[in-house]
């Protein structure tokens, strides 16, 4: 720890102070980076999209995260140097390593892993202790129960235990829904906090059949909000689940429920909280994704702060958005347990007068793991960990997933699918979770599961024409780059294996994808049929789980073949600060 401690020392007292950003004006002592000046009378701690990563992880932030139209060049669509400049972070600092992809491999050796729930617990307890009882609240923005092999076999039960020990008081959901209604309800029985979702309703058929709901009159399946007493004031936390669960995932998991952004229902609910419940502050705990939240903040009035997640954007400062009723602050708190958001509020009668916001990187080497949580994690992992500790390969390069178009993890998955399933073309979903593995370090089955553990992992092989492949790409690309955020789903582009293409993000649907070519250089024929392998289909499939297919390929000693890089040529976005390299 000696060398690392020195590195943290050097990087403290950041240049950022020149911009007067309080969160970056840290003292020279490493331990003191978590000393936060007291402010206001209520503290809300927010974690989101931890993806069940119980232990500390490496996670490289994206080098491609393009914003289109009004979002171009605005947070969260800044990467690398552009991000550092926008937020006044010194390029050789620990913060640069935590928040961006800048010189990731070099810095990973200096600053180590981030996150881990035992480390998070130490930090959370300390920050709650700092403000005293009845002045703090811990909330989780969802994607807590999915992302590891353990969470997958335990169907999220492990994370419910962890959440209870951590004392998460309210959460909303996304991947939580992919375990299906029964498992979700069983888990929520055990969960001591509140599961909140104002935007999940019974379908009319389910309502007619008297399916269970929190409120039969409105059809709301879950409690929309909870009111907490904080610092002597009434604070409402409203839950907003991921709006597109039955579209992004197989509908069979949630057949009775219908989702959506539900702006109008949200407005009515917020108005009622203000008028009837006389709350002093309204916080939206959102899994919309940051672009959707920014638009929503401009249209819905009466919300003080949106604590956001889903798009995994680690944004150091809230973005202020004006609307007809005043201003709403929008945040996004990163992913994989890398960050803890601290929102300090000065609340008066019916009003938030000021706030301070800190998005703290959870540097595992600076935090002593909480013994109770470490024991629980050990106990939860014990029955499975030996099965998954076998080394299956040693990567010869950095493996990461996150990026709008591609990353080495998905290139590897596509290569394995094509090879094992004897297909010309492979498609792999553009998930944003999945951790980073360093070059030269053993990769285990547990690591592979952290890239693939979902409830619909079955692989498939099917014939598709060139025109169908283009249509699929166009469709998914529109979910990423539609100029209207309400039409975006918050994932990245489907990963292409065995072929390359040109993408023009600013075009309209139908016009973004061109020049599809097989790896050999031959153009895809519109009516020619290709053998396509893939996984994570929203339709039911029968093939072996993707982790077995990729595991088999890696165990044979093979890694990458042919080309490196995304295989995607970008057009019309030259100079966009959401691009800093491949990915």
């Amino acid at each position, binding site marked *: 720890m000696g060398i690392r401690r020195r590195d943290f020392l050097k990087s403290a007292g950041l240049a950022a102070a020149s911009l007067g950003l309080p969160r970056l004006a840290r003292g020279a002592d490493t331990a003191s980076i978590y000393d936060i000046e007291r402010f206001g009378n209520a503290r809300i701690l927010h974690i989101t999209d931890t993806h069940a990563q119980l232990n500390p992880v490496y996670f490289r932030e994206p080098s491609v995260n393009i914003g289109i139209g009004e979002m171009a060049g605005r947070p969260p669509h800044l990467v690398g140097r552009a991000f550092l400049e926008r937020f006044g972070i010194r390029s050789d600092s620990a913060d640069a390593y935590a928040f961006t992809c800048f010189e990731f491999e070099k810095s990973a050796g200096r600053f180590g892993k981030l996150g881990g729930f035992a480390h998070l617990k130490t930090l959370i307890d300390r920050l709650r202790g700092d403000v005293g009882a009845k002045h703090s609240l811990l909330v989780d923005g969802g*994607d807590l129960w999915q992302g590891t092999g353990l969470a997958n076999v335990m169907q999220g039960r492990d994370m419910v235990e962890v959440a209870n020990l951590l004392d998460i008081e309210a959460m909303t959901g996304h991947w939580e829904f992919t375990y299906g209604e029964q498992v979700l309800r069983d888990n929520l029985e055990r969960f001591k906090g509140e599961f909140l979702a104002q935007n999940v309703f019974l379908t009319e058929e389910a309502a007619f059949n008297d399916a269970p709901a929190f409120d039969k009159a409105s059809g709301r399946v879950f409690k929309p909000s909870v009111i907490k007493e904080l610092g002597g004031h009434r604070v409402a936390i409203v839950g907003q689940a991921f709006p597109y669960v039955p*579209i992004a995932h197989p*509908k069979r998991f949630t057949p009775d429920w219908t989702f*959506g*952004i539900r702006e109008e229902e949200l407005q009515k609910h917020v108005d009622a909280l203000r008028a009837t419940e006389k709350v002093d502050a309204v916080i939206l705990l959102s899994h919309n994704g940051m672009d959707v939240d920014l638009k929503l903040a401009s249209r819905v009035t009466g919300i003080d702060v949106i604590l956001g997640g889903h798009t995994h954007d680690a944004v150091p400062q809230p973005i202020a958005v004006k609307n007809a009723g005043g201003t709403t602050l929008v945040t996004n708190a990163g992913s994989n347990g890398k960050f803890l958001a601290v929102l300090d509020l000065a609340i008066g009668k019916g009003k938030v007068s000021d706030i301070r916001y800190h998005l703290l990187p959870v540097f595992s080497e600076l935090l002593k793991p909480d013994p109770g949580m470490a024991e629980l994690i050990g106990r939860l992992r014990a029955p499975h960990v030996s099965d998954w500790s076998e080394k299956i390969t040693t990567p010869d390069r950095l493996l990461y997933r996150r990026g709008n178009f591609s990353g080495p993890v998905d290139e590897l998955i596509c290569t394995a699918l094509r090879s094992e399933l004897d297909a010309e073309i492979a498609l792999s979903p553009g998930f944003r979770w999945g951790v980073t593995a360093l070059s030269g370090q053993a990769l285990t089955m547990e690591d592979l599961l952290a890239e693939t553990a979902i409830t619909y992992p079955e692989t498939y092989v099917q014939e598709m024409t060139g025109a169908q492949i283009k249509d699929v790409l166009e469709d998914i690309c529109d979910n990423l780059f539609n100029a209207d955020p309400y*039409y975006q789903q918050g994932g990245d582009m489907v990963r292409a294996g065995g072929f390359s293409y040109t993408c023009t993000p600013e075009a309209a649907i139908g016009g973004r994808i061109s020049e599809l070519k097989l790896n050999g250089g031959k153009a895809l024929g519109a009516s020619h049929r290709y053998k396509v392998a893939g996984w994570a289909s*929203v339709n039911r499939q029968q093939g072996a789980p993707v982790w077995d297919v990729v595991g088999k390929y890696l165990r044979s000693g093979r890694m990458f073949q042919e080309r490196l890089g995304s295989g995607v040529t970008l057009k019309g976005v030259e100079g966009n600060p959401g691009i800093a390299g491949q990915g």
Partner: protein
Amino acid sequence: MTTTTGPHPTRRLILLGAASVALIGLGNLPFAARPASAAANDKYPEEAFKQKSEADAIKALYGRTAEPSDKVKLDAPEIAENGGVVPVSVTTTLDKVTSISFFVAENPYALAASYRIADGTIPGVANRLKMAKTTKLVAIVEADGKLYSATKEVKVTVGGCGG
């Protein structure tokens, strides 16, 4: 509250409030009794249902064009959970409403349904429409002899790959 009036689930008519509205659509015969103030869609609008584009269908149904109005509230999902049954509804604060119609621009035939609103009825209609692909959805309210419209894009997607 839910009444099925047609043979197809996509043509179900849901009555909002206690009022009643008449459905004029495929497989439904027009009501025999009509108020004297019957509008342009007085008889079964066979020609309108044959039109491919929404502009032609509007012209065939009403014989004129509509002006966009924020008094027409069209509710539909941004992204459909199932393109086969997309829930859409229209309410309006306009007075003297005589008809409400839905047009799905990208469907093979754009006119999806047209409702006559009887005198003294709350002007609100909800139904389920089938949408072949991502499309512009147009709702038209005929009120006091004039046409008002609201438009919304509804995305029909193959799904998958959500974060």
